[in-house]
């Protein structure tokens, strides 16, 4: 009797354990069908998305040549892209080393000229008369200025080009993002974000490209010119333009980012309420698989949302690749100027003060570049997250 009871208990236990497994198996199969349907829908939607202009832009860039936008978006959606942080770190260090090695000859020239001027300054009180010594100092300053100017010109051109590239990327990515936002149920979010992104790609970038960056260039030029002659002073003029740059950068960053954040949150709430009502209605009558996707309508919306998020991530990678090299160039140049100022200080003369002032003035250029990149990143983040909160 005891054995029979044990056998019945074992059979019951086996039945209890087996049934959920069978239900899970059926659950997993249904979910697989939905995921397959979603993949097909994504392929269909990707084929319908007009990425030709973005592809042409990528093909024009040497470092991104051969990259297919659609394939890259698909791999971002399926998660086939992995970030190797170790090799990224190595690449960054390699870039810094490369820029530093290009600046080494310039550093050697600056050091040599400063030492010569230092020796001549000490000889001024000895066998050389002061006028000749002043002329030699002036020529020494011009030599250092010419070398530093040649390094600065390439960096400043790279800075202006980077801002132009960011503007072009905004013009290509924003229309696609707004389209995908509207298609994924974020119609209010898209309508609310449209004027903000239009102002970003038009007004804000123009402000930086036409006022802030040229003002930063003018500050650098005034630093040069102000050191040519003791009677021509340009410090206050340089301070005025620095102040203009600082205020414009601060106001754009502060006000615009606050405006974007408030708009994005409020728009997402409205879209979220209306789309959740649709989901509730649909999922009430259609077999729900895992409470996730329940029908063809949601596959279309979810497909657009996934493509939007992938496009946002792709745009961020593109932004990072565009900004990284010029930024490292500026950082290397600023370090070079500070090092040169430190090394030439014992030699005396005005070369050290000039190099130190230039290093400080270069910071405004870096700040302007980073501000545009940050605002672009913020708008991308809001476009992706504002309607991403809905699902």
């Amino acid at each position, binding site marked *: 009797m005891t054995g029979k009871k044990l056998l019945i208990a074992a059979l019951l236990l086996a039945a209890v354990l087996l049934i959920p497994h069978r239900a899970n198996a059926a659950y997993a199969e249904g979910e697989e069908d939905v995921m397959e349907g979603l993949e097909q*829908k994504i392929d*269909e*939607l990707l084929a*319908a*998305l*007009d990425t030709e202009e973005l592809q042409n832009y990528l093909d024009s860039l040497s470092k991104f040549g051969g990259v297919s936008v659609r394939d890259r978006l698909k791999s971002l959606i399926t998660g086939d892209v992995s970030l190797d942080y170790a090799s990224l770190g190595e690449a960054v260090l390699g870039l810094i080393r490369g820029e530093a090695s290009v600046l080494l000859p310039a550093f050697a020239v600056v050091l040599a000229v400063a030492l010569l001027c230092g020796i001549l300054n000490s000889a001024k009180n000895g066998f050389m008369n002061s006028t000749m010594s002043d002329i030699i100092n002036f020529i020494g300053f011009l030599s250092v200025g010419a070398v530093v100017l040649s390094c600065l010109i390439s960096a400043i051109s790279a800075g202006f080009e980077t801002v132009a590239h960011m503007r072009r990327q905004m*013009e290509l990515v*924003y*229309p*696609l993002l*707004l*389209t*995908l936002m*509207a*298609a994924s*149920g974020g*119609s209010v979010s*898209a309508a609310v974000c*449209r*004027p903000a*992104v*239009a*102002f970003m*790609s*038009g*007004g804000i970038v*123009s*402000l930086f*490209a*036409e*006022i802030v960056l*040229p*003002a930063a*260039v*003018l500050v650098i*030029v*005034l630093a040069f*010119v*102000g050191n*040519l*002659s003791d*009677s*021509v002073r*340009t410090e206050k*003029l340089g301070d005025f333009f620095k102040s203009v740059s600082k205020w414009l950068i601060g106001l754009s960053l502060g006000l615009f980012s606050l405006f974007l954040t408030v708009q994005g949150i409020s728009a997402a709430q409205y879209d979220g309420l*209306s789309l959740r*009502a*649709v989901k509730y*209605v*649909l999922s*009430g*009558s*259609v077999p729900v698989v895992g409470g996730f996707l329940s*029908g*063809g*309508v949601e*596959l*279309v919306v979810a497909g*657009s949302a996934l493509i939007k998020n992938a496009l946002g991530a792709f745009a961020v990678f593109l932004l990072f690749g565009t900004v990284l090299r010029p930024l490292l160039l500026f950082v290397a140049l600023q370090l070079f100027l500070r090092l040169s100022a430190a090394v030439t200080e014992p030699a005396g003369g005005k070369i050290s003060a000039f190099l130190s002032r230039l290093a400080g003035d270069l910071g405004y250029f870096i700040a302007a570049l980073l501000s545009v990149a940050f605002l672009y990143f913020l708008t991308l983040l809001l476009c992706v997250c504002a309607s991403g909160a809905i699902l």
Partner: protein
Amino acid sequence: MKAYIISIVGAILLSALVTALVSDKKMGRFIKGIARLLVFSVLVTPLVALFRGDGDLPSGASEIGTDSGYLARCTELLRESYGEEVGAVLADYPVWAETEISLSENGRLEKITVKIGQNGINEQDGHIDMTAGIESALEERFRCEVEVIWCNSRETER
């Protein structure tokens, strides 16, 4: 802005050159004063024009369009999906029907029109009951306007 920068640099360089070349006598000091006034005027003139409203400020917002082809394709897919779901509801009724789905600009379902072909099988009262049943089922499910139209079988063949 570029022209402004170049003009300031040119004026300052000229002033520095004049200061270096000219002597410290009366005429020399007069020339240095003129050079400084030149620099001052080059600095101030564009700012005066800006305050008058003659200057160029950065352009405002640019136009951002959308991919209308993609939105049209999404609308088509949504219409197909809604059509399939309406069909699933109508499968419970012994009728042959065509459905028209009306979507708003942002893809929301606005109206479902069901055109049912008459085959002479159902009686008049049966039509009314079936219409009410279909409308009620679809309104409850999709929360939108529903219209049921009965057509002759000849009209549906045309």
